[in-house]
């Protein structure tokens, strides 16, 4: 096992000016499950492939433990790329399917058997070791494929969108299994996905990338409660955070004609470049339904209600503009509100909502960087 360090590592494709990965600085702890997440083209897969040795590192270095692997061949890095769906060899036993790579590495027979048995125990495959793959269920076969990587006892596992060829149901099941397995093995793992829900549910920590630049790295809780900038705020969380630009006057944000108080020190962090405007975000669960015309509240016209059983979300339209017209709340005035699933408003109805005090995320309008402290939402406080 080992730590992994990206030390200002860059990848610049020949013929392009902008780096695909730009001075990535990331320290991954021994045994940690780190998820690289971001939209398509953000550099997450490129970063993983730089660590695997598939992409050149044009500037900076990459370390596995204390060892500089920047210019080491992929097979000599002691890293395993894990595929979820290897083809299994039909005439070989499960044990041979798992252990054949060790045979190639000329590991002695007793050692191979011992490692295969240890891996089988972790994977609940002990009783199948002497059977052929044909006798296994789909899930068991996938575990045999994992076993192939595990017996090699690499320092680091790498997984690049391993669930992308599974259907939605199996994807949810498998992601839980992978996360549980990684905790049992305790092997440092770097995992790439474009799906922020996958990232939040699997990672010890998450690194969000955009345009080749690391935006923020932290635990799922930190990313949710204190997104470092507007991009991370909009990317992490489902449904997404409501975000808009508002005029600030005397320590109050003007939201739809209503004054919303901002903390003094947050307002104090405003710069001249912000020109009297701030970007404010509030999560769907940070809005309370209140009586019409309550002070600081604004009306939302219900467009769609998404009922999930345990939760319900109103996808609504602001009845009148609350922010600055051209830079209104995200998605042209759409507001998402979490409501009591046992008291759901009807389509077309107006509901009055109010941002719960202290639950707004405030960002500089000039730099998009976070100005306010972490927000802790108390889920039980929903009306």
């Amino acid at each position, binding site marked *: 096992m080992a730590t992994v360090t990206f030390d200002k590592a860059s990848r610049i*494709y*020949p*013929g392009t000016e902008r780096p695909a990965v730009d001075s990535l600085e990331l320290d991954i702890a021994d045994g940690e499950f780190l998820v690289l997440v971001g939209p398509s083209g953000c550099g997450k897969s490129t970063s993983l492939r730089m660590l*695997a*040795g*598939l*992409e*050149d590192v044009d500037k900076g270095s990459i370390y596995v433990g204390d060892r500089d692997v920047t210019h080491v*061949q*992929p*097979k000599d890095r002691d890293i395993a790329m894990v*595929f979820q*769906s*290897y*083809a*299994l*060899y*039909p*005439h*070989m036993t499960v044990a*041979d399917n798992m252990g*054949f*790579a060790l*045979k*190639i590495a000329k590991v002695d027979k007793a050692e191979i058997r011992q490692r295969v048995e240890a891996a089988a125990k972790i994977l609940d495959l002990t009783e199948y070791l002497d059977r*052929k*793959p*044909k*006798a*296994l*269920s*789909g899930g068991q*076969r996938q575990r045999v494929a994992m076993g192939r990587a595990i017996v090699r006892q690499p320092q680091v596992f790498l997984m690049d969108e391993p669930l*992308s*060829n*599974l*259907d939605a149901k199996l994807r949810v099941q498998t992601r839980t299994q992978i996360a549980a397995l990684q905790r049992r093995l305790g092997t440092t793992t770097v995992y790439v996905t474009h799906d922020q829900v996958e990232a939040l549910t699997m990672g010890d920590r998450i690194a969000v990338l955009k345009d080749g630049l690391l935006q923020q790295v932290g635990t799922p809780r930190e990313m949710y409660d204190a997104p470092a900038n507007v991009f991370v705020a909009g990317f992490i969380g489902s449904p997404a955070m409501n975000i808009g630009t508002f005029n600030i006057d005397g320590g109050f944000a003007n939201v739809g004609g209503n004054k919303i108080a901002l903390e003094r020190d947050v307002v104090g962090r405003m710069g001249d470049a912000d020109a009297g405007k701030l970007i404010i975000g509030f999560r769907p669960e940070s809005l309370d339904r209140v009586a019409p015309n309550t002070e600081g509240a604004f009306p939302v016209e219900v467009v769609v209600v998404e009922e999930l059983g345990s939760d319900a979300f109103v996808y609504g339209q602001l009845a009148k503009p609350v922010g600055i017209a051209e830079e209104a709340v995200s998605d042209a005035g759409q507001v998402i509100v979490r409501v009591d699933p046992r008291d759901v408003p009807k389509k077309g109805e107006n509901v009055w909502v109010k941002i719960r005090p202290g639950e707004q995320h405030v960002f500089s309008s000039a730099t998009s960087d976070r100005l306010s402290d972490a927000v802790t939402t108390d889920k039980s406080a929903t009306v």
Partner: protein
Amino acid sequence: MALKITGAVDPELLDLPWSVPLETWPKDTLAALPRGISRHVVRFVRFRGRVLAVKETVAPMATREFDMLKELGRMGAPCVVPFAVVDGRVDENGEELAAALVTEHLQFSLPYRALFSQALRDNTLTRLIDALAVLLVRLHLLGFYWGDVSLSNALFRRDAEAFSAYLVDAETGDLHRDLTPGQRAYDIDLARTNIIGEMFDLQAAAELDDAVDPLEVGDRIEERYKELWNTLTEKQTYRENVRKHVAARVQALNDLGFDVGELDMTQTSDGSELTIRPKVVDAGHHSRRLLRLTGLDVQENQARRLLNDMDEYRVVMGGEEDEVLAAHEWLADVFEPTVRAVPREYRRKLEPAQVFHEVLDHRWFLAEKDPSVTMPEAVASYVKNVLPTHPDEQAVLGHEISEFEDGVDAAGVPVPREAPTHTTMIHAWQNLPRTGQLD
């Protein structure tokens, strides 16, 4: 969601039983072809006189692989031809079914396992590995990183003495402007590991002699790849007689079957030395020449063999100066009469160019006893004594289908034995120039 077909412009594709999982498609739709080891359910389907391969997978992957194969084909890579993506499948209860990628079956191609179950010469294995090494080099030259190189993920066609390999599974691959040394090294390492695994599996199935060392077989792909890659791309520096060296380098690449599209020449700063490095090389030197001269579209080694015979004919017939005219005469006097001598019932066994190659071999064999043996005599003897013992390889290998059931892609459900299928396709035979009808 309604059934959606992207790619093929053939409404009859809608008539296939898309509302049934591929695993349980009715026998009368299926073509009994040997299947390789696959992660997915794969079946061969008879469709309007041809054979299609259908693979179940999730929709985004199917679309990605379809586009990738299309792009690779456009670039001239040896790979299967994508036909369609079928999405929005539901069964009779309205449950969603996996999407499907449909590709055209490559005529006269064989999966490697089928070749091991035929009594073939000892060096079949090395010829397969060599073919895979050539395929990998060609794909790497185009900037394609495969990500899962194996014998199972390729198909093989007889090509004179050798085999030609074709990419069939592009699901893990990526196209890049240029590959990094790391990407190439990783592909080679994967190829080695997978081939060794495949050899272990053949031995476990008692289809490969235990005397064969899988590790040696695996090492061969690495050696052959590196040899070929270096020959095609390495830098050479010369002090004098540069013109001669450049010509020799180009000739050496031509002999290997590659044309040089672009050559980088760099003079050292003091002007005393010149460094040359082939920048763009295209496979298919001989097959392009044969196509230009005769209109015959055949594989590289077959073309080499046919061209040799044509050149010999030209010398023997008094050295016709015009190459095109000589080719024309050779086609009419030698090639066509030879392949026409093959009775219709044997035409599903081998491609015409491969038949011609084997007849040349047979004539050489006969000439040991009677040096004056003619081509018509050789072909008559070949049709009588050799060809009948060949299995049909156009699209059917019915007699040993049961051995190719891998049992893995069937999710535990025992796959029923499939009866041999007879197709009436003779595309490859109809492609002869100037001859619409063969008899």
